[in-house]
């Protein structure tokens, strides 16, 4: 495996393009796990997945098994899912409830905050370093854990910016997500998809703010949906949700241009703001009323005026506010990535809103549906096309170069600009050179 010097890493990123190796070299991938995924705040789950003391949800951070628990002190903990004894994964995959965590190999028992509770035949440890109270005899906690509106993030690095500082401009997307609940509460519901991609994790992440691709990649699904609509419906017919959702993917370029792009420190970004492909859905009966009752009309108008399409909280978390759904990035290897799709229920809103989100995820994110597989195919072709090492070695990010508007702590650009990609790789370079992930 090649070793990369700082110079070599820096040379992979140019202002207007990046080198193919960032997508194809296993050595780069391993460095990313250490320097990006090992230092950024990584999304773990939502507190609603562990409501009661003893609830646990096991997942992974940068390929390391962890478990999120609700402890009797009411706090949420994220523990490395690894027994302090000989290292066995303590919680079998999945979620559930247990008053204590008992390892399957020798029955050592830990509290839901990781504290060692019981060792069979403890006398065997008399006088040794393995004993209650010694941190190495507990299930270790991930160095830093924090949550924002119930979204739990963890950080493998003990030092670094706190969660809210790090979220910077992306916070507003989460605020808006939660405000769309009359009770200001969201909860995970309705299961999830886990979509296996045979491509590098960054291809998915970049795609979310790629306004140039929908009218090409999704022409066969969205375009067809429009045609079916024209065939089967006439002026004034109520449009089925499904077609309302599929149609806008092939809006014209001007539409996507107008959506606009915004980026913040640590690589976060958003498409849309004032409008998005989700703006034009027909109203859900009673939804606005329930919001008005809660916030008053003026505030509600503000809330609903925010139309952020895809928010990327770099590198692991992506959000669709209007759809109240998220997609989580799980890198497996340099050319394998699992994308998880989850749906939130807006507590207090009509069930129909939640059910619309379910339908949206079926249509767009399912492995068996009409939209996702065409994105999958695009990533697949990127990964394979980039095997041509004797061809052009560079991936272009030239669109609207030098036309970014630099604000106090954000950058903005027109919808089809490559600004966000350039920004992501400046961030990437900062992380990879141990410079902290800021670039503004």
């Amino acid at each position, binding site marked *: 495996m090649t070793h990369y010097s700082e110079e070599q890493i820096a040379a992979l990123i140019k202002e207007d393009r990046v080198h193919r190796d960032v997508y194809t070299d296993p050595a780069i991938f391993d460095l990313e796990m250490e320097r990006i995924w090992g230092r950024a705040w990584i999304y773990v789950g939502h507190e609603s997945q562990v409501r009661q003391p003893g609830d646990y949800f096991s997942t992974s951070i940068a390929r390391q098994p962890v478990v999120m628990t609700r402890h009797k002190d009411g706090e949420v903990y994220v523990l490395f899912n690894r027994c302090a004894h000989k290292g066995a994964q303590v919680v079998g995959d999945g979620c559930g409830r247990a008053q204590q965590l008992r390892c399957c190999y020798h029955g050592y028992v830990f509290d839901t905050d990781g504290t060692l509770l019981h060792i069979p035949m403890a006398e065997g440890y008399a006088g040794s370093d393995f004993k209650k109270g010694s941190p190495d005899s507990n299930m270790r906690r991930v160095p830093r854990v924090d949550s924002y509106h119930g979204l739990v993030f963890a950080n493998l690095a003990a030092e670094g910016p706190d969660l809210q500082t790090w979220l910077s401009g992306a916070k507003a997307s989460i605020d808006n997500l939660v405000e769309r609940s009359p009770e200001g509460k969201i909860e995970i*519901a*309705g*299961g*999830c*998809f*886990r*979509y*296996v*991609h*045979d491509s590098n994790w960054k291809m998915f992440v970049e795609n979310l703010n790629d306004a140039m691709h929908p009218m*090409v*990649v999704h*022409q*066969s*699904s969205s*375009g*067809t*949906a429009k*045609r*079916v609509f024209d065939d*089967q419906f006439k002026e004034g017919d109520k449009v*089925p949700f*499904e*077609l309302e959702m*599929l149609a806008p993917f092939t809006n014209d370029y001007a539409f996507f241009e107008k959506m606009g792009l915004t980026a913040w420190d640590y690589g976060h970004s958003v498409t849309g703001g004032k409008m998005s492909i989700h703006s034009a859905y027909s109203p859900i009966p009673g939804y606005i009323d329930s919001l008005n009752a809660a916030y008053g009309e003026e505030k509600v108008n503000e809330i609903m005026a925010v139309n952020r399409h895809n928010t990327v909280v770099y590198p692991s978390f992506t959000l669709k506010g209007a759809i109240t759904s998220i997609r989580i990035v799980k890198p497996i290897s340099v050319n394998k990535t*699992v994308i998880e*799709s989850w*749906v939130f229920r807006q507590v207090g809103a009509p*069930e129909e809103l*939640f*059910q619309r989100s*379910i*339908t949206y*995820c*079926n*249509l767009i*994110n*399912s*492995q*068996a*549906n*009409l939209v*996702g*597989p*065409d994105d*999958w*195919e*695009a990533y697949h*072709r990127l990964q394979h096309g980039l095997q041509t090492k004797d061809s052009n070695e560079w991936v272009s990010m030239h669109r609207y170069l030098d036309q970014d508007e630099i604000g106090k702590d954000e950058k903005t650009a027109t919808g089809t600009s490559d600004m966000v990609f350039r920004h992501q790789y400046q961030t990437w370079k900062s992380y990879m050179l141990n410079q902290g992930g800021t670039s503004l």
Partner: protein
Amino acid sequence: MSAVAEDQNKGTQPELKELEQFLYHEARLLDEQRWAEWNELFTKDGEYWVPASPEQADAQNHVSLIYETELLRAVRIKRFKHPNAFSLQPKPRSVHLISNVMLDDYDEHSCVLSSRFIMLQYRREELDTFGGSYTHHLQRVGGDYKIRKKRVDLINCDAPLGSILLYL
């Protein structure tokens, strides 16, 4: 051992052999990519459903790999012919094997069939194996049957999965 006993007020028991042939015919239309004909096997309100969890209760409150009524089947089938459906280029192929067909219930107008299946999907040098159970809710229409509901329970419906490009 037939799952349901002959029973006066349920009308005469349908011929299992005939029902099997119906399922084979349905599978064949899929393998031969005769989707329009396949779609016609469904009743007007016919549903095609691939849950994303075992024992999933409904398609409204939990995500599904596919949940299609007539409208969405029309979109998908139209898309199959689209010149720019890139995930279908090169064209995927399928082979459906159906076995263990059992008649779970029936009355004069309808019956419920359970079966097991394996579907092989091939595209661009990748051969994928999908397997699970079918539950067919059929309606008698004249001498023939129509599909009121086809439920496909993949054994690994909640596992990490790649693209499923064709009807299961």
